């Protein structure tokens, strides 16, 4: 009985040691879906930047057109 207890605890120790061998990742953030919040915020900033670039692009195009007349 004592022996089997020892083996069991040794096995558990091995399992715990193995779990710590694995690199830690943000698995919780993925499982509860909070990562989508980050993606949404970053995409909004990206699109904002693109809209800004598009408006600048159009303004410069208009300037070029006016200048050529």
């Amino acid at each position, binding site marked *: 009985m004592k022996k089997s207890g020892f083996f069991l605890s040794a096995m558990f120790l091995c399992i715990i040691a193995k779990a710590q061998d694995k690199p*830690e*990742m943000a698995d919780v953030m993925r499982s509860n879906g909070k990562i989508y919040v*980050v993606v949404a915020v970053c995409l909004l900033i990206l699109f904002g930047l693109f809209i800004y670039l598009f408006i600048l692009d159009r303004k410069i195009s208009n300037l070029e057109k006016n200048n050529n007349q």
Partner: protein
Amino acid sequence: MRKYWWKILSIILLTYTFLGGFLFDVPRLFILNETIRNLYFHVCMWFGMMILFIVSFIYSLKYLNKPSIKNDIYASNFAATGCFLGVLGYLTGVIWANYTWVTDQQQSLAAILKEPKLIGAAIALLIYGAYFVLRGSFSDNDKKARVSAVYNIFAFAMLFPSIWIIPRMVGSLHPGAPGSESGNPALNYNDIDSRLRLVFYPAIIGWTLVGVWISSLRIRLQLLREKILNN
């Protein structure tokens, strides 16, 4: 629409980069952990910088071959956007290094300060910074264009020892150095697996296209300014 296709392509590729970069599966690595996703952002800044500097170099060669103010404007504005991406790459690298080298690996400040990759990148960016100082110091436009075209070729040539060759020859914490036991950073088959490539290559193209877009806006503005000043 025909002129716009690459701008739309850059939007699509970067949207994909942000979606895939945050949501796709990445290899589980020690020290790096989840920060391996910075590969799609930090490393792409340097790739974009390098491509824009190559374009700038080509326009400087073209200027020396056939002096026209247009080639000079192209060369200087591609170099300016390249520097901007380079500075962003440097700053993102500072944040990344702070958490992987300092916090996780307990590297000393002395080890960080003598890091050859950081010193090399700083030298390369400062050489390009001097390019703009040089341009600003001329009042004669033709002289400015000619001297700065020659200097731009020198600055481009200095990129190779300072960011490509020397950091690979001496020990360094940065991937790609002998001490880190990997060869070519980001493109090595041991370093980067197919899951990373799936987002990494589109990300390089997307960020570079945005750099080209910003440069093209700057170039068009400056060409307009030249035209108005000449009339």
